[in-house]
C-alpha cells in the first residue's frame, strides 16, 4: 500500500467525535472494525493519523489496525479526490485497451492507481464491469461515464475538471 503525500486536514471536531465514539465502544466485544467504519465515516478515509488515534484509543498496536485496513476492501487508506476516477478493467474494456487508458491517467496525474493527487483534486482507481460494455473502454469520473476512450483523449477529459 503506497503512502500518499497528502496532508492530513482533520479538524478538532472530527477528532473529538472519533475519540468519544472510541471511549463509548471500546469495551464492546471486537470493537475494532466498527470503530474503523465510524472513523472512515468521519474522515472519509483512514490515514495514519486516524489509525494512530484508534490504536492509542484501544491500546492495541498500530499494525493491528493496519492489518484490518488492508485486508477489507471497504477501507480506504487514501482520500477520495474532488473528482474520483474509476477505470473499468472488466473483460470487454480490458480487451479494448482500458489498461492503456489507466496508464495514461497515471502519467498525466502523476499518481498510481489507488492514490490521490496532493491537491486532493483527483483520485484514481480501477473497477470491474460498469455495465456499459457497448461503450468500452469506459471510465467514470464521479457519476459521469466516459466511453470509447483512447489514451490520447485523457488530457482533454481531465481539463474539463479544473
Amino acid at each position, binding site marked *: *500500500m503506497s*503512502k500518499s503525500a497528502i496532508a492530513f486536514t482533520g479538524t478538532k471536531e472530527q477528532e473529538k467525535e472519533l475519540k468519544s465514539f472510541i471511549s463509548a465502544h471500546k469495551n464492546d466485544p471486537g470493537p475494532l472494525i466498527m470503530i474503523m467504519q465510524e472513523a472512515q465515516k468521519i474522515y472519509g478515509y483512514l490515514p*495514519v493519523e486516524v489509525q494512530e488515534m484508534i*490504536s492509542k484509543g484501544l491500546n492495541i*498496536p*498500530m*499494525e493491528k*489496525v*493496519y492489518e484490518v485496513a488492508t*485486508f477489507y476492501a471497504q477501507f480506504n487508506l487514501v482520500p477520495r479526490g474532488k473528482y474520483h476516477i474509476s477505470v473499468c478493467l472488466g473483460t470487454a474494456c480490458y480487451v479494448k485497451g482500458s489498461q492503456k487508458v489507466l496508464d495514461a491517467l497515471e502519467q498525466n496525474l502523476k499518481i498510481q492507481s489507488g492514490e490521490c493527487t496532493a491537491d486532493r483534486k483527483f483520485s484514481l482507481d480501477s473497477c470491474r464491469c460498469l455495465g456499459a460494455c457497448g461503450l468500452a473502454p469506459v471510465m467514470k469520473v464521479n457519476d459521469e461515464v466516459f466511453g470509447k476512450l483512447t489514451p490520447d483523449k485523457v488530457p482533454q477529459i481531465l481539463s474539463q475538471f479544473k
Partner: protein
Amino acid sequence: MKKTVKKSVAKKETAKKTASKKVATKSKTSNKLLNIKINGVDYKAPAGSTILEACRVAGIEIPTLCYLKDLNEIAACRVCMVEVKNARSLVAACVYPINEGIEIFTNSKRVVESRKKTIELILSNHRMDCLSCVRSGNCELLALARANGVDDTKYQGAKTESKIDDSSAHLIRDNSKCVLCRRCIAACTKFQSVGVIGTNNRGFKTIVGSHFDVPLGDTSCVHCGQCINVCPVGALYEKTDADKILDAIRDPEKFVVVQTAPAVRATIAEEFGAPIGTNGEGKMVAALRRIGFDKVFDTDFAADLTIMEEGTELIERIKSKKAVLPMITSCSPGWIKFIENYYPDLLPHLSTCKSPQQMFGATLKTYYAEKVAKIDPKKIVSVSVMPCTAKKFEIHRNDQSAAGKGIPDLDYTMTTRELARMIKKLGIDWNSLPEEEFDSPMGTDTGAAVIFGTSGGVMEAALRTAAEILAGKKMKSLDYKEVRGMKGIKEASYTVKKGLTVKVAVASGTANARVLLDAIREGKADYHFIEIMCCPGGCINGGGQPQVSGHIRNTMDYRAKRAAVLYNQDKSMKLRKSHDNPDIKKLYKDYFGKPGSEKAHHALHTSYVKRNWT
C-alpha cells in the same frame, strides 16, 4: 529463613492462563479415553486431543509447518491435512479434535498427494537459494520438501513482490522466503505483547510487515528476536558483524577480547548435534581460542559484578524511606526497550545498572586495560557472544563508553548461532575439541553468575548476596527454588531477619512483564524487587539461541532442559555467591573502591530514555 509463596498477581499471568486452560481440558478429559482408528489400527486416545496429538501418542507423526502448540494454532499452511472417514474434505490435523470412533487416514493416496501439492505450491512462491541460505542446515520447509519427495519446479509463476528489510539493528527480514505461517507474528504478539508485525494486504499480495509498511526499525520492536527463533525458514535472521570480528582478529595491532554470556554454554552444543541440555562450556572456550581471540573471558564475571552493584542499589532503596520501590532489574536490553516504549512513566523503578555485557566491556577498557594488561584501550576490540539479538541494539546506545568518547564498551556482539557458524566456517571440528577453561581474571565466576542465564537466576543470585548483607550473617540455604522454573510469573517472599520480609516477583516474556507493570501502575504491587527478562524463560531461550524446530517445541519443554544445565553447573561449584568471587573483590580493592562508588557509577551505571510505541 522462612519462605512463603503467595499467589496474587500471578493469577493473571498470560502464558499460564492459556497453558492451564489446556491442561484443564486435558486433565478433565484425560481420564476419558476415546476409541479411535488410525490407518486401520485401533487405538485409545484422551478426549480433547487433536488428531495430531492423538496420532503422536500412537507413534504416528503428521508433518506440520505453521502449527506451534499453544502459540500458533491457526491452520494456515494446510501441510498437516489428513483424511477422516465420512468427512467431505481433508481436515487439518493440528486443530481438528478427535471424537469417539473417528477413523483417520494419515497416509492414503489422497492425503499424500494433497500434502505434496501443498508443499509444491508453497515452494512456487518461494525464492529458493538453499545453497547459500542461512537456514539450509535446519530449514523446516526444506526438510518437508525432502521427506515428501516434492518436485520443486512443478509450479512456476509470479512471486509475491517484496523488499529486504534491514532497517533495524538486529535482524533482516527477507519476505521472498516467507511461507506466511505467521509464527513470528504470534511470538511478537503473544509472547511479547509487542505486536509490531502482522499480515498486510490480502490474497496473493499478503506479506508480513508493519503498519503502513514502515520498516521494522521505525517501529517499537524491542529487538528480542523471538520472531527469528520461531521462523521455520530463512525469512528472518540476525544481522552479523562476523566478518568484522574476523578482520579484527587478523589485525596484529588489535587486542581482541571475547566474553561469553552464561546462557551460551547451555545451548551451543546443540548446533553441533548434541542433545538439548548439553553443557558446551569447555569446548566453546577451546573453539574461541582456536578462532584466535587474544583473551577468552566470561560474562559471568560481570554478572557477579552486577550483583554487587544492583544488590547495593537494592539495599539502599530498601533502607531509604523515599526511594522508588519495587526496583526492577536492568540486565535484559529487550526488556529495557520495552519499558522505554510502553511504560516510560515507570523508568524510575529500573535499576541504573548497565547490563552484565556492558559492565564487562566497561571494566575491560578501564580497569583491565589500565591495571592488568597495561595497554591503550583504543587497541582493545571488545566482542561478546550472546544468546540475544537485542544486544546488537544495546551496544550502540548512548552512554556506553566508560573509557571515554569513541571507545565503546562493546565493539561487536554475535549470537550463539553466529558463533556456531563461525566455528564451522573456520573448519574447527567441535567434536574433537578439548575442554578448556576461561582466562583470568575476568573469567572467574560463581554459581550465582551462571544462573543469570535463566528466568529467576538474577533474582536468586541477588537474594544470595542481599539476604546475607541485610541479615548480617551467612544464610543456611542458598537455594531459592520458588523463583526457579519456566512459569511466566513467579512470586515469593523471604524473611531475611526479624521484621524484614523481602517480597519479590519474577517475570519473563514481556507479555508477562505487562501484568506486573500494570500492577505497579495501579499501586497494587508491594514487591521490593522484580526480575524481568525479555525472552520467555530467560536467556536460555533468547532470540540468538539455536532455533528449535516446531516438531520439538510441540513435544517438549526444551527451555527447562537448557536451564537445568545452568542449575547443575551452579550446584557443582565451590563458590556460589557473587560476593565470594575473589577477582571481583580484587577489582573493587584495586579499582572501583566499593560497590556504588562514584567511579563505579561512572563506569557501570547508565540512564534511560522515554520513547513511544506504535
